[in-house]
Each structure stands twice: as C-alpha cells, then as structure tokens.
C-alpha cells in the first residue's frame, strides 16, 4: 500500500508493476486525465493545487479503508500537482486482488473518495487565456 502527492508525471506501468503479485488474479487501474473541454469551454491545461500534508493523510486513510473494505493490501494511489497538460494523468489508482469484482469495486470506490475528500483543487486554464478554479463558482 502506498499513496503519494507527486509533482512529476505518473508512470502507470510502474504503478501496475508495484501491485502485481502471484496471489492476485485481477488488476484494476483507473487514470484520470486532463480533458480538452469542460462545461463547453476549451481547456488548455489544468493546474492542480494541493494542501499537501492533509492530502497525503486523506489519501493514506482512503487506501487503508479500501484495503479493509475490499480485502487487499495491494493498493497504490498517486495524485499529481502543478501544471498538467492535455491527455496527461492527474491521478492514478492501482488495485490488485485475487478476484476481479473486488479489484474493480475498490478502484471505483477510491476515485469517488478522492473526489469527495482529498484537499486538492484545480485551476482550469482555457484556450482563450482565461482561467478559473473548478467547481467553486468563482
């Protein structure tokens, strides 16, 4: 089990390798990537800003809760901060489990938890040069 807030590109293959073990039959990976459009506006990049020590703590709690709830310690979560270009990964979750349903349920639960409680915010940079914090009506 490992969680991290990182300021460099996320290496999906290395996350996959990290949770792989012969006791597992299933590996579920979820990767959030920067999309070129949001609410109809053309996006150029997203800048992720974290309250890093608390984000690390929440991500650690989420991984521990998922490990208990879904029955596997083979969980790795990375969330990137800083300026992330189109198509690049902002978050990656890897869960390995003996059985596929649990692996998939766990990665889904984890991304919902991350979006609901990890103190990270995104500033969308638009193609027209403007920018705004996402989901804060300002």
């Amino acid at each position: 089990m490992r969680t991290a807030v990182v300021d460099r590109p996320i290496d999906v293959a290395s996350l996959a390798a990290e949770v792989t073990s012969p006791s597992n039959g299933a590996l579920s990976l979820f990767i959030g990537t920067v999309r070129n459009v949001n609410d109809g506006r053309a996006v150029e990049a997203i800048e992720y800003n974290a309250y890093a020590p608390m984000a690390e703590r929440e991500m650690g709690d989420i991984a521990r809760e998922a490990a208990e709830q879904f029955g596997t310690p083979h969980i790795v979560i990375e969330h990137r901060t800083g300026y992330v270009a189109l198509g690049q990964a902002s978050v990656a979750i890897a869960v390995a489990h003996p059985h596929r349903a649990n692996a998939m349920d766990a990665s889904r639960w984890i991304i919902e938890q991350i979006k609901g409680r990890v103190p990270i915010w995104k500033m969308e940079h638009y193609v027209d040069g403007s920018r705004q914090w996402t989901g804060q009506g300002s």
Partner: protein
Amino acid sequence: MTLDVLLFASYADSAGAPSVRVTVPDDARVADVVQAVRALASGSGIPERPLVAVNHRYAAPDHLVCAGDEVAFIPPVAGG
C-alpha cells in the same frame, strides 16, 4: 491565542493571501475561528460555514482549537 489560518484556491484568491492571522479566545472553537476570519476585511469572501481542517483532519464547528494547531479552511475539493 493567535492563529495563522491557511487558505487555499478560491479562498486564498479572495483573501489575497495564503493565510490570515486572527486572535481568538483560548477556549475558541472552529466556529469562533471562522467568525474571526470573516470579520477581517480580507476574510469577507469566506462563506459562513466553510469546511475546516485542524491538524490535517476535517473538524466540526464545535471542535476545540488549541494554540499551535494547524487550522485550514478547505474550499470545495476538486481533485481527481
């Protein structure tokens, strides 16, 4: 006691700074800290009931704040 309250994202933009300093009674609770920040000119953009974290954990409005605690106001999160 004196506290430096951490602000992030739109809250920091609204205050024009990543933290604000307030003085509150020694038996202050989270709600009192919020009130003190909102009473500042720079804190007028903070909502009435923001999410608050004390020492990296979400804390209820009646949570007692101690000197040295790290208090942060958490705008609606948007990670992922």
